[in-house]
Each structure stands twice: as structure tokens, then as C-alpha cells.
């Protein structure tokens, strides 16, 4: 990967007071590929004590064109810990002339509840809605922080298409206070000065040109230079902790869970009823997980220190709901009652999330799961799902680092990764094309691992109507209807879904005069066509491994003979394995296709070959058989 820092210049002498907003002062190098420029970003965090701090932020942005408007507005979060003392803002035209001012009272007050049932977080928002480009905005705010859970990171390059003229991050702390930081994708180091009983740490950087992200490229946090910060000793809402190591961090989280695993008597009784007669501890885990799934569901309430602390087990028992923390904590309590040790695991949930930073201990992630270590094996449990298999961690939580928390503290762990053989999609199609070109097909598919996630959702999470709707929009077929669908599931560490569909498609085959055009690949056609960019900057990332196998038999009307039949194709290269073959007999077409890819990364130099690889697949998957009427 090309270093993003190649043109980095440190300009410590930059003076904020001599600020001019004139757009003419932006060097051309910062306008290249840029929709907006961070003219000045200054963040000063003054830590008063482990639980209290004051932050001052001053941002000046120039928006060059409409696509950069996101930086023209301002949004500031506040909650039980953070209160906004003051915010002000100004708008300037391209010459630096002030056009308008804004004060805190002009701002809109917005709820952040969203999909949660309740959340005490809120936002103050404002926008000048300027339309004359370029324009410059200047925002300043001061916040009181009462209760410290972590610190903002410093990412001087905000996002794709935004350059930065000058950015500065300052921490002022009592001399004895341990400021922890870790530079990522860079080697930014602070200038440290002392005065009286305070120490000042200053990071500064100038003139970072804009970068452009690429499709199938790495996530931004992997590209952008940034510095992570974290406290050592900290306090929030009467809780005291230390996060200088994963051990200490884990002990703190454990402390928040103290006494929250008490089950009501009836649930205890239920646990024994369900598990006392079982010998195999695995069986006990499965039975209790099933009990959890049948008796709870996900509802999110985030109040106070709720971002860290789960609701107690008896709360979940009474209400039969909770968020990921509460449900995982409850699951662990159920296991404990059955004499099994379950562990609490903090993790990033989602497909496009940052990697867990394991060599710097701080609060990260957005999700909690639980797990049961069993000798060499571990049973992973997603406690917010009513339908997931015990032990399976798919694209939402699989193949990543996380921190497991127990009484000894926090431990970095890795969730399971699935191979191309684990993520199988194996399809058998038995179809008939009538004289009019209409198609009638029985489609039987077996999906496993990550490949079964979508059909699993269709079968379990969708209502019957939504499922019908989704199935009727899923395939790339002209005018079709799925009039029957049936699903069968087998739970397991690699779950299996078997799907049976009956598909009717009008005019699947094109009849042009004497000829019949048929694409033998009914359903699984590669649609990936990569633009042949002249220069690729970043790695090409293939996130998951999978194998797709299609065996298709299509009965055809009599009286035709083949005029053109796609040639057999077999590709075996580092990007994947693909082969397809088709045979035409007087009454049917037999088609076979196998496509396998493995999770991997390819350097930018491989990109032109990747373009060709996917073009070959696209062409092969879209090639047609031409039949002509016998004369």
C-alpha cells in the first residue's frame, strides 16, 4: 500500500490568531481531489481529574463544492456525562468576509434515540446552508465532561476527498496523570512541555492532501493516519477503574457486572429442570441457549453508564428483553446456575467495522456476545438472536479479535473463521422451457455457513409476505414469480439451510424467428465488473471465502439443434477457481458451474488482472446457447 504520509510536513509554527479565511490561501496540492478542506482543527482537552475534563474545539472548514456540504453543518453530542457550555459559529465567503453568525440558541435540539427504545444521548445541530462555493465555516465549542470513559481519537484526515491544512490535538493534564496514546498508520509524536503542576502534550500536522477510497478497498481506519488516546485511571458515575492494560480494563467491566447475575427462583428452578439430567456440558449449553432464544428478545435502552453496564439478570428474567450486554449477562447467569462458566466478550459487530486494536487497551467495539470455553474448543453465543445456531459466528461477529472478560481481567481472543468449504451454496435446478420460451423450474439449494445467512433470515426473520416479496425481487430474471418456497434448517457450528423454490419465468428464453436464445446459468451470474481504473492505490480486499456449485438441467422444446454453445471454461488462479461446462442433447441442456473464492487481499499491482478475471467470469456467466429450428 502506498504510504499516505509521503507528503507530510510538520509546521509547528502555524499561528491560529493570524488566521485568514481567504480561500486563496489554500495550496493547490490540497485542492486536488478534494471536496472540502480542513483549514484548521484544534482540539484541546484539559483533564482536571480522572473523572473530569473540559474540551475546547475549534474547526475551520472550507467547502469547495456541493459534495463537501457535510462539513458545512455542525453536530454536537451531549448526554449525562457531556454538557455543552458554549458553541458559536460563523460563515465566510471565499474572500474571507464574514457573512453570518450562529449561537447555541440558534441550534436545533435533536433526539438520538433512533432504533433504540430509549437513549439519553441528544444532539445540537446547525447548518448555514450556504450555496455559493467555495465557502468557509468556523465553529467553536466548549464542553464539560463529568465521567470519563475514553477520549476522542485524532484523525486529521477525516474522510475520502477531504484534505487538511492544519490540525492540532492538545492534552493538558496534571503532571502525575498518565496520558496514554498510540499512533496508528503513522508515527505522530507529541511535543511535551511542563509548567507548574501541569503537563501539555501537543500533536500537530500540516498539509495532508486528500485521498480517495476505492471500491473493494480497505476501511478508512486502516488507511488514515490517526492517534488513539485513553486514560489510565478514570472515574464515571461513582465507578473507578484503570484501563492501562487489558487486565485492568477487564477487571473494571467485571466490577460493573458485580451482583448482576442473580436469577429469580423460578428461573433457577427452570435451569435445573432443563439441565440436571444432561451429562454432556455441551448439551447443557445448547439447551440453555435455546431457552434464552425462546424467552427473550432484543430491546435497547441506553441510559447513564448503560453503554458499559448490563441490566441485571433479574431485569431480563422479568421483562424477557434486553440489549446485547443484558442478554449476554443473563445467558452467563443461566450457565452459572447449571455449573458452567460462560464469558462476557466485547466485540465489533457488523460487516464493515474497524479491526479490534489489541495492543492498546481502551474501550472500543459496539457489541457484546458470550462464549463458553470447552477445552480447546469454544462455543460462541450471539445472545440477541432468537434463531442463530449456537457456536456460529457469521459475517456479523466472525473472523475478528475481541476482548473476553472474566474475573482475571480482559483477554484478547479470536472468533472463528470459515473456509470456502464451510460457506457453501450448492444448487440443483430441474427446469423445463416450453414452446413459448417460458420457464418452469424447481430450484433446490443447500446453503451452509455464511452463505446460509440470507436464506436463514428469509426463513426465520421475515414475515410470510415480506419473504414472498423478497424472493420475487431477488433474481435477475425478466418477469417471474416464485410461487412456492420451503425451508428446512439444521442448527450446528456450521448451520445448514435447505431451500426449495418453484419459479415460473415468462419468456426466459428469447425466441427470435427460428432461433431460441437460452442462458443456461439461471440464477447465479457474476455481476461484478470492476472499472478499469488507471491507477489503483490500495489493496483489493475479498472478505469472505465461499464455494458456489450449480447443476442445472433444462428440458427444451423438440425440433431444435444447437447453433452456438458456450465453450467449457476452467480458470484456476490466485483470485479464484471457476469452471463451467454445458452439454446440449436433443431434449435437454445440462449445465454445471463451480466457483470458489478465498478470503484474501491482493496488492494494487494485481488489480489489472483482477479486472480481467471478473470480466471473464461475467462473460462466461452471461453467455448463451443458441438453438435453431431444424429445417
Amino acid at each position, binding site marked *: 500500500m502506498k504510504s499516505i504520509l509521503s507528503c507530510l510536513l510538520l509546521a509547528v509554527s502555524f499561528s491560529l490568531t493570524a488566521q485568514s479565511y481567504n480561500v486563496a490561501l489554500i495550496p493547490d496540492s490540497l485542492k486536488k481531489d478534494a471536496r472540502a478542506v480542513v483549514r484548521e482543527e484544534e482540539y484541546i482537552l484539559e483533564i482536571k481529574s480522572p473523572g473530569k475534563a473540559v474540551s475546547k474545539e475549534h474547526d475551520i472548514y472550507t467547502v469547495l463544492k456541493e459534495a463537501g456540504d457535510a462539513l458545512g453543518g455542525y453536530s454536537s453530542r451531549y448526554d449525562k456525562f457531556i454538557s455543552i457550555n458554549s458553541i458559536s459559529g460563523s460563515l465566510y465567503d471565499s474572500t474571507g468576509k464574514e457573512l453570518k453568525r450562529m449561537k447555541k440558541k440558534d441550534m436545533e435540539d435533536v433526539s438520538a434515540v433512533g432504533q433504540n427504545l430509549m437513549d439519553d444521548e441528544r444532539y445540537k445541530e446547525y447548518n*448555514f446552508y450556504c450555496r455559493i462555493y467555495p465557502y468557509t465555516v468556523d465553529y467553536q465549542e466548549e464542553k464539560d465532561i463529568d465521567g470519563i470513559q475514553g477520549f476522542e481519537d485524532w484523525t486529521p484526515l477525516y474522510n475520502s476527498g477531504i484534505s487538511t491544512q492544519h490540525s492540532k490535538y492538545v492534552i493538558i493534564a496534571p503532571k502525575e496523570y498518565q496520558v496514554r496514546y498510540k499512533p496508528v498508520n503513522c508515527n505522530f509524536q507529541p511535543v511535551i512541555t511542563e509548567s507548574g503542576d501541569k503537563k501539555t502534550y501537543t500533536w500537530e500536522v500540516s498539509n495532508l492532501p486528500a485521498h480517495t477510497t476505492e471500491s473493494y478497498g480497505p476501511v478508512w481506519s486502516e488507511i488514515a493516519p490517526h492517534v488513539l488516546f485513553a486514560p489510565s485511571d478514570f472515574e464515571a458515575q461513582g465507578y473507578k477503574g484503570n484501563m492501562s492494560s487489558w487486565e485492568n480494563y477487564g477487571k473494571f467491566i467485571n466490577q460493573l457486572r458485580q451482583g448482576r447475575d442473580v436469577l429469580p427462583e423460578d428461573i433457577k428452578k427452570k435451569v435445573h429442570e432443563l439441565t440436571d439430567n444432561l451429562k454432556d456440558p455441551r448439551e447443557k449449553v445448547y439447551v440453555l441457549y435455546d431457552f434464552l432464544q425462546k424467552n427473550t428478545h432484543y430491546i435497547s435502552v441506553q441510559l447513564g453508564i448503560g453503554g458499559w453496564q448490563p441490566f441485571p439478570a433479574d431485569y431480563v428474567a422479568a*421483562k424477557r428483553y434486553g440489549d446485547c450486554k443484558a442478554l449476554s449477562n443473563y445467558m452467563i447467569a443461566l450457565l452459572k446456575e447449571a455449573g458452567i462458566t460462560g464469558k462476557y466478550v466485547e466485540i465489533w459487530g457488523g460487516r464493515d467495522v474497524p479491526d479490534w486494536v489489541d495492543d492498546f487497551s481502551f474501550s472500543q467495539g459496539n457489541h457484546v456476545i458470550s462464549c463458553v470455553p470447552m477445552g480447546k474448543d469454544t462455543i460462541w453465543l450471539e445472545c440477541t438472536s432468537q434463531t442463530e445456531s449456537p457456536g456460529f459466528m457469521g459475517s456479523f461477529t466472525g473472523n475478528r479479535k475481541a476482548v473476553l472478560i472474566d474475573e482475571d481481567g480482559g483477554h484478547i481472543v479470536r472468533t472463528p473463521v470459515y473456509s470456502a468449504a464451510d460457506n457453501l451454496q450448492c444448487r440443483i435446478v430441474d427446469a423445463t422451457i416450453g414452446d413459448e420460451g417460458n420457464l418452469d423450474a424447481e430450484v433446490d439449494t443447500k446453503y451452509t455457513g455464511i452463505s446460509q445467512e440470507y436464506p436463514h433470515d428469509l426463513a426465520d426473520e421475515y414475515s410470510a409476505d415480506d419473504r414472498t416479496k423478497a424472493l420475487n425481487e431477488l433474481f435477475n430474471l425478466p418477469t417471474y414469480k416464485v410461487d412456492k418456497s420451503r425451508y428446512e434448517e439444521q442448527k450446528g457450528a456450521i448451520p445448514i439451510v435447505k431451500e426449495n423454490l418453484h419459479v415460473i419465468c415468462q419468456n426466459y428464453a428469447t425466441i427470435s424467428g427460428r432461433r431460441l436464445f437460452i442462458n443456461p446459468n439461471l440464477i447465479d451470474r457474476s455481476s461484478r465488473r470492476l472499472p478499469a481504473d488507471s491507477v489503483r492505490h490500495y489493496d483489493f480486499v475479498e472478505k469472505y471465502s465461499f464455494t458456489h456449485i450449480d447443476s442445472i438441467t433444462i428440458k427444451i422444446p423438440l425440433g431444435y439443434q444447437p447453433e452456438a454453445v458456450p465453450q467449457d471454461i476452467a480458470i484456476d488462479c490466485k483470485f479464484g477457481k471457476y469452471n463451467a461446462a454445458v452439454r446440449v442433447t436433443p431434449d435437454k441442456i445440462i449445465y454445471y458451474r463451480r466457483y470458489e473464492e478465498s478470503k484474501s487481499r491482493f496488492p494494487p499491482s494485481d488489480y489489472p488482472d483482477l479486472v480481467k478475471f471478473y470480466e471473464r467470469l461475467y462473460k462466461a456467466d452471461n453467455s448463451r446457447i443458441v438453438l435453431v429450428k431444424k429445417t
Partner: protein
Amino acid sequence: MTIHNYPCIVVCCCILASMTVSAQDKIPVKFGKVTPADFVVTAGGLDSSADAVVVADYGTSEFVGNVKGWFTLEFHHTRRIRILKRAGFDAANITIPLFTAGNDVEKVDGLHASTYTLENGKVVETKLDSKSIFTDKISKNWIEEKFTFPALKEGAILEYSYTQTSPFLKNLQPWEFQGEYPCLWSEYQVDMPDFFKYVTLSQGYLPFKVNTRDTRQVNFHMTEPGGADRDEQFTFDDNVVTHRWVMSNVPALKEEPFTTTIDNYVSKIEFQLSAYKFPNMPYEDKMGSWISLSEGLLKDDDFGGDLFRNNSWLDDDMKTITKGATGNLEKARQIYAYVRDNFTCTSHGSLWLSNPLKTVYKNKNGSEADLNLLLTAMLIHEKIQADPVILSTRANGFTHPLYPLLSRFNYVITRATIDSTVYSLDASESWLAFGHLPSRCYNGGARVLNKERPYAAVLDADSMMEGKTTLVFITNDDKEGLAGHYQSLPGYVESCDLRESLKKEHGEKEYMKKLQTGYSGDAVVSNLMLDSLKLPDQPLGVEYDFKLTPDTTTDIYYFNPMMGEAHKENPFKAAERTYPVEMPYTMDETYTMNMEIPKGYMVDELPKSAKVLFNSDEGFFEYLIIKDDQRIQFRSRIKLMKANYKPEDYNTLRDFFAYVVKKQSEQIVFKKIK
């Protein structure tokens, strides 16, 4: 239009109902009493796949004298739901929106909710605890009371009840009989005192099971606050009419594509305050007429009050804005372009000014009402005849054709009359042209507000035509390939969408990629030209060159004359339709291709020419192809004269597009000359 005039329904149903009051007409459940037998209720014959069913939904509204010498509305609501499947758990999340305006607030009292489950044959009740009821402040005027039912599981019965009090007489609660889940019994009763007159509006396709009215005498108490003096107590008697509406076995209503808004088709009842008529007091009209509505709005400081002032703050700037304009039309164009290009529209769908016009002008931003009323004022300032027009957008539902119901309107545009030609103007979108409206405005009844003579204006989607012409030339190049030129004038809506999408980061680059990757086969696209991209008043033109290389390893070259322009999928996917199809516009799409027969090839087979008519004279699809020794000429045209179709026309429409998709996929077959 499905809005019925209330009196005629009531008259006929009333007679019927009074003769047939029977046990069947009573609400079939006892709220608060759940027995094991209640756990067998499903949506049964109504909807066997339902995830949840509303067993009974019961509401009453009444007017109660208050301590401010006036009346408070009391709405009592009780509802029983049964969860049938896990996918129905969402039915357990309840939100009650409440309106507030300064010190006047709507409130919820006595909220009770319980989950009932059957455990070993016994009914177990789990009550909602009051700590789990949350209040979320959404905006200045709206708060939400929210909760979710505890102890949920499949098969559970949920029941809740509350009283909502409102000081806003205009907010007499409407009632929706139909919703996301099927409903076995839905009943609403309103006690209407004689001294308040409301117009009742009902809509939807479903019949009432009960629709009765019953008159009785009621004694009203109220207290007039005395300030420094003693409070004064009042009581008086008046007739109260109890209206009762019931629907039973109501199916769920689900939204399908090409629908303006499902709200137009939900079975519901709503009310509009029309008058006060207190004993021994003169009749006081509260609804008015279209004329009084127009007058009122034009006088209102939050709407048209500023329009007819001299607005001298505009004097200087208007000279610059209209500089060089000769004649009123040119002036109007310059003013329109000024507002469109220099102001940001921060929200669409408001009827009222958020600031006085002078402030809007200074801020350079505002809602579409702010911007278009400012535009009106600027035109009037230049002595150009301009009127504000109010309308309801497609997503907001239809306006009422008869009653002047202001609450149905949510959008303001401008209508300018210059040299007796009328121009509809909306300056709220940067990609709109002078005299054009966005498709959301084409929703039937709009109202032109005018001091002398306000009038109705119909903005019908049937009158909005999306025409597109595409021209493709293909010739043999000097090597073994084909060189092509593509030229297209997209329709107005497509042009607007394209202009909007090209504004995004790397918009043009992305569009080019899409063209390149969207082409089937080996086409190489170059020299993209977008004509008048930044000039919304000019039609947008798209032009580019492309190269095709026939596969020389085989004897046959198959070629689809539609290239990348074919309709590949039928837009009408659902197999059935229960309510009208409302497309945003009519269409006329012509694609013409003129090609040289590739060097070294001869035509082996051409697709057949064809023409199909849609409902005989409402449209057609034409597919014409001819060849001579050197060239092939081809034309495909789709024309539909209507945008709105009845549900009965759905199958014809679906078949029509199925045919288009099929025909447009056909191939020309070239064979190598041996």
C-alpha cells in the same frame, strides 16, 4: 378518489343499524379479563400468515368542561393484540405522539399495559412497570411516549389502555380501522356536543358493520379562572350525539410500488372543526370557504402577509437581479434562477413561513414555502402577476375536493401569469427549470390563492409526460470492429435525477463507470459529453462514442439492437393488485438505431417487427426493424397516455411490460460470409 361525503353514508346506515342492534354488534372481548380460551384467537380466515392480530381496538372521544372556562378533548383508547409469530414482536412497541404548543400540551394519563401468557394452562399477567415508560422529545412541538411490552413470547396477548387529553379542539382524534396487522374488531365512538360542529370524513374500500348515532342530554361543568377574583363555576345542558362506527375482520393493508401513498386507501375516519353553536349565541363558522381560506392565508403573517407590503428591502437587490432583462418573462426567469441558485431548501413539505420574508432573504435558506413565497413576493415587487399555490404532495395524500381543509395541504409553489401564459414555479430544487414542477406536486387538487378570485388548479400526473428520445449510429470502422455514436435526450424527470446524481463526489466519474460496466459485451465507451448539465433551464443531452468488436472466432454474431437501453425487468413484479396503480407520469420513449451491417457478415435473421396496443387507444409498443444490403434500421417506441390505472388494469399493464421486456431482448443474427 375515495373520500366520501359523510352525511349520505350516515343517513342510510343509521336506519339500518337502529333496526338490527343485536349481540353481534357488541365488542367481542372483555378488556382486562383474559381467559385460556382467548389464546386460540388467530387472524384465521382473514390472513393465515399474519404475524400478529389486533383482537380488539376500541376508542372513545368526548368533550369535557375544564378549569380554563373551555373544553378539553378526552380520548380513551384500549387495545388488545395477540402475537402469533416472532416476526410480530414489533407490534409490542407502542408509541403515542403528543402535540405541544407552549403551555398547551397533550398528555397521557392512566397508561396501563399488561402481557398475558399461558403457562401450564394458567393465564399469567405481567404488568408494565412505570419506569419502563419513556418520553422522547422529538421536536419543539412533538413528544413521544414510548414503551414495549414485557415478558413477550409467541402466542402472548397484549393489552393496553390510556387516556389522552388535548386542549386542541382541532385535534379530535381520527381513527384508522385498518393497519399493519389484521384486525378483528375496530370500534370508535365520539360524543359530539351540539355546540361544536365537525365535518366527518371517511375513506377506504371497506364497509362499516355498525354506523349509528344516538342523542342524549349531558350536563357540562366548567370553571372560569377569576384571576384576582374568585373562580366562576358554570354548568349547562346540551344535546350530545354519540356516533358509533365499527368495522370487523379488517385485513391488513400493504404498500405496493407505484402508489402515491397508502394513506389514501386506509379505511379511516377523521374530523374537521367547522363551527361553534352555543345556546343563545350566534353561529360561529370555523371552517370557512375556499374564499375565506384564501383571504386568511394571504393576510396571515406566517403565510402571505408580507406579499403585498412594499418590501422596500428588495428595492436595491432587485435591480441587480433583473439587470439586463427585457420584458416581464425574462425578468421572471432571472428572479426564479436567482432564488433557485442562491438559496438552499432545508425541508420540503411545509405550508407556513418559518421566518418573515426579509429574514428568509437574508438567511438564503428556508423551507419550500419560505422560498416560493419569497419568489412570489419578488415577482410581485416587479409588478409581475404572481399567486401562491398550495397543494398536497403525492406522499402526503389527496386534498379534499369540497371542504376547505387546510390541514390536507403541505406544499407551496408559485404561479406567475405573464402575457396571459401561466407558469408554475418551484424554486426549491437546484435542478428544476422555469415553468416545471417536481413530480411530487402532481397529485390532483391544488389551490391558487388570489385576492380577487381564488380557484382550483388540477395538477394531474396524467398531464405530465416523460418523453425520451435516443439515437444510435453504428458504422464499420477501419479495422474489424464497429464504431458507434450514442445520443440521447432523456425525459424531464430522468434529466433531473441525473443532474442530482452527477453533483455527488466523483458523480461524473461514477456515471462513466456505470455506462462502461452497464454495457453488455465488449463495448468500450469514450468521449462522454453531457450537454447543459449545469443549465437546468435547458434540456439535458447525453452523448458518447463506443466501439464494438465482434468475436471473430465464431461464425455467428448475435446483436441486440436495443444495446444497453432495453427494459430488462418488468417493473410490475407483484402478481396481483388491490388498489390503483399511480405512476408519476405518462411516457413516450423512442429508441432509434441505424447500423451498417458488419464487414464480412450478412444478416441471417432479424427479429420480427411488431406493434401492440394498450387498452386499444391508451398506448402502444412498437418494434420496427428493416434492412437492405448495407444497413439495418430499427425503432422501438413505448407510449402510455395515462399515469393512473384502476386495479382491474393491473394485469394488462403487467402483460404489456412483460411483452416489452421479451421483445426488447431479441437479437439480430449475423453470419460470416464464407
